[in-house]
């Protein structure tokens, strides 16, 4: 029953919509709304990265670079060229897609984990450009991002952003689920199970890997743009290596190849540090300990492990 529910294309977006709507009514203050909005934004980037890691079997260690491209697009383009933030967001996404294409095309023809190394370099490159071109990006001190204005509505406040980020995340999950169920997704799953077998039955392995990589870059870029608009200020650490690692950790923690897992992984890594501040000096120790515990006890990631355990008990 669980399995049938999960295989329905609308199930995951429906669950997430219910979650977004339901949570809103139990949020005591706009601080909680902000934390939730941060979860939705990270989840969006993680859903994209999870397509790459969970289906194409490739790791990107520079995804924060694409995140940064999106974030700085909505900061720089309106300031320098007077573009509307939404147009800037789209331009940023296109730029991220183009960059991913240029990085991925030669690399993904090779077998093995070369993409991890290439993206590692790419991420550091983006970070360095942002940090050094102070005239354009404000350098290490960051730069302000103009407020999003839609018609007469100046978007601000925890509530508005909660709904916008929540909706974006649901749409992102819906696209991801459909992608996985499409012929492209079938090819990807075949590729993940056995690259040789996929090639034998005529799947253009390199092409499909490239497609997912570009899509995942667009997810990260849109998430980055959204974060910049929510905060109204952006610093280079959004594009930093640590952030890339954080995104990868969210994928692994939540469960590779699971859209729902992406959201859970993002939620755990964003909410836990807020909860753990109560432990003061032991905060980081506990965070590390909990993550180890998750990985040892729920080896396939939180969502896949739990749903497998659940299904097992039913049977």
């Amino acid at each position, binding site marked *: 029953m669980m399995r049938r529910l999960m295989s329905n294309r609308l199930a995951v977006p429906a669950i997430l919509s219910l979650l977004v709507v339901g949570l809103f009514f139990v949020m*005591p*203050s*706009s*601080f*909680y709304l*902000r*934390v939730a909005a*941060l979860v939705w934004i990270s989840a969006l980037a993680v859903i994209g990265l999870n397509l790459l890691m969970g289906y194409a079997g490739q790791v990107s260690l520079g995804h924060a670079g694409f995140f940064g491209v999106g974030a700085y697009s909505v900061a720089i383009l309106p300031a320098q060229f007077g573009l509307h933030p939404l147009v800037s967001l789209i331009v940023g996404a296109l730029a991220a897609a183009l960059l991913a294409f240029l990085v991925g095309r030669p690399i993904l023809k090779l077998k093995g984990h070369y993409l991890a190394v290439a993206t590692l370099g790419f991420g550091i490159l983006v970070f360095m450009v942002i*940090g*050094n071109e*102070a005239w354009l990006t404000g*350098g*290490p*001190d*960051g730069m*302000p991002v103009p407020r999003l204005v839609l018609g007469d509505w100046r978007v601000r406040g*925890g509530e508005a952003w909660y709904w916008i980020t929540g909706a974006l995340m649901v749409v992102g999950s819906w696209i991801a689920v459909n992608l996985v169920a499409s012929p492209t997704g079938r090819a990807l799953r075949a590729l993940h199970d056995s690259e040789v077998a996929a090639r034998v039955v005529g799947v253009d392995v390199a092409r499909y890997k490239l497609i997912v990589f570009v899509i995942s870059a667009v997810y990260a870029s849109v998430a980055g743009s959204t*974060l910049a608009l929510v*905060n*109204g*200020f*952006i*610093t280079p*650490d*959004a594009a930093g290596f640590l952030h890339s690692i954080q995104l990868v950790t969210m994928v692994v923690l939540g469960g590779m190849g699971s859209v729902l897992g992406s959201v859970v992984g993002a939620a755990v890594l964003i909410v836990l*540090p*807020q*909860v*753990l*501040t*109560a*432990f003061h000096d032991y*905060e*980081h120790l506990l965070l590390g300990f909990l993550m180890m515990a998750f990985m040892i006890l729920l080896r396939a990631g939180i969502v896949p492990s739990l749903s497998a355990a659940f299904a097992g008990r039913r049977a």
Partner: protein
Amino acid sequence: MQKSRKWIGGVAAATLALGAFAGGAGAADTIKIGASLSVTGPAAFLGDPEARTLKMYVDDINAAGGVNGKQLELVVYDDAGDANNARTFATRLVEDDGVIAVVGGSTTGTTMAMVPVYEEAGIPFISLAGAVVIIDPVKEFVFKTPHTDKMACEKIFEDMKGRGISKIGMISGSGGFDKSMREQCLGVAGNYGIEVVADETYGPKDADMTPQLTKIKGTDGVQAVVNPGFGQGPAIVTRNYRQLGIDVPLYQSHGVASKSFIDLAGEAAEGVRLPAAALLVGDKLPNSDPQKAVVTGYKSKYEETTGQPVSTFGGHAYDGLMILVEAMKRAGSEDPAAIRDEIEKTTGFIGTGGEVNMSATDHLGLDLSAFKMLEIKDGDWTIVQ
């Protein structure tokens, strides 16, 4: 039995976590003040002494009876130098903890990310970060305690002017501090009739600056060299400078105002001048200096309590907290707007950074007297009169 005990443990843990998340609904007889500092991460050298200082002095104030008859409650979060984290903690301090004022924001990035939150909520915010953008243009609820890069440049140029220097060379790194200060120096040089005739840069990991310095040496008419820099770069510049036998005066910035610079540069540091806060030379100040009591008091207390050498960054936190506490006493209430007004009226406050005189157009309140011009002699600081 076994099972039920597990359950109880689980429920207890969950309750604990929930309780921690919800935050204590603070008792009404305490005054809550907040801080989001970069206690860990790349800016820990700023946030760590700041956090220690705040805790130390809040305990002190409470032991002495608190403020306006109420105890202070300090809420400190560690943003690890990440602007996005800082923004979240700022929201948490305002929405969830219900603080009435905030000290801190260790870096310019974290500070600027938090500014909109406090401005919107109308909570006074005293930043501990360096850049001028924090208070220029003036923001209603935002103040800061550390001197700016611009002031360091002005102090250096003032000293040069006194020595009759008008043409200088500049060499700076490509880090955030270096770049910001280089720009500020270029901006104000003209005001002192100083012309920058050579402007060289080096990378953060360069181990040899001889080529850049040779170029400066070969430039006609260079009467002095300034090195706005931070970290190891300035020590290497100083060594290379002596090796090349350049004999015009060398000025370093307040960014290297610590004993470790003298250790790294060794004998080459002799004769180097730099602007620095009084905290560094507290015991060398004349007894007539009003800052002497404050800086020696803070230094000995910090070093006794923490067992670590004092840093100017902790001093900024001391200044911020004391300015806030004085303002709270004058306001006699816990109304954030009233406290803001009183902070703005701060005059004649003697802190570790200098004498603070704020106004509606100046939310920093320090002038050039906040910096002492130091010269390194026999491996130690001396104050240039």
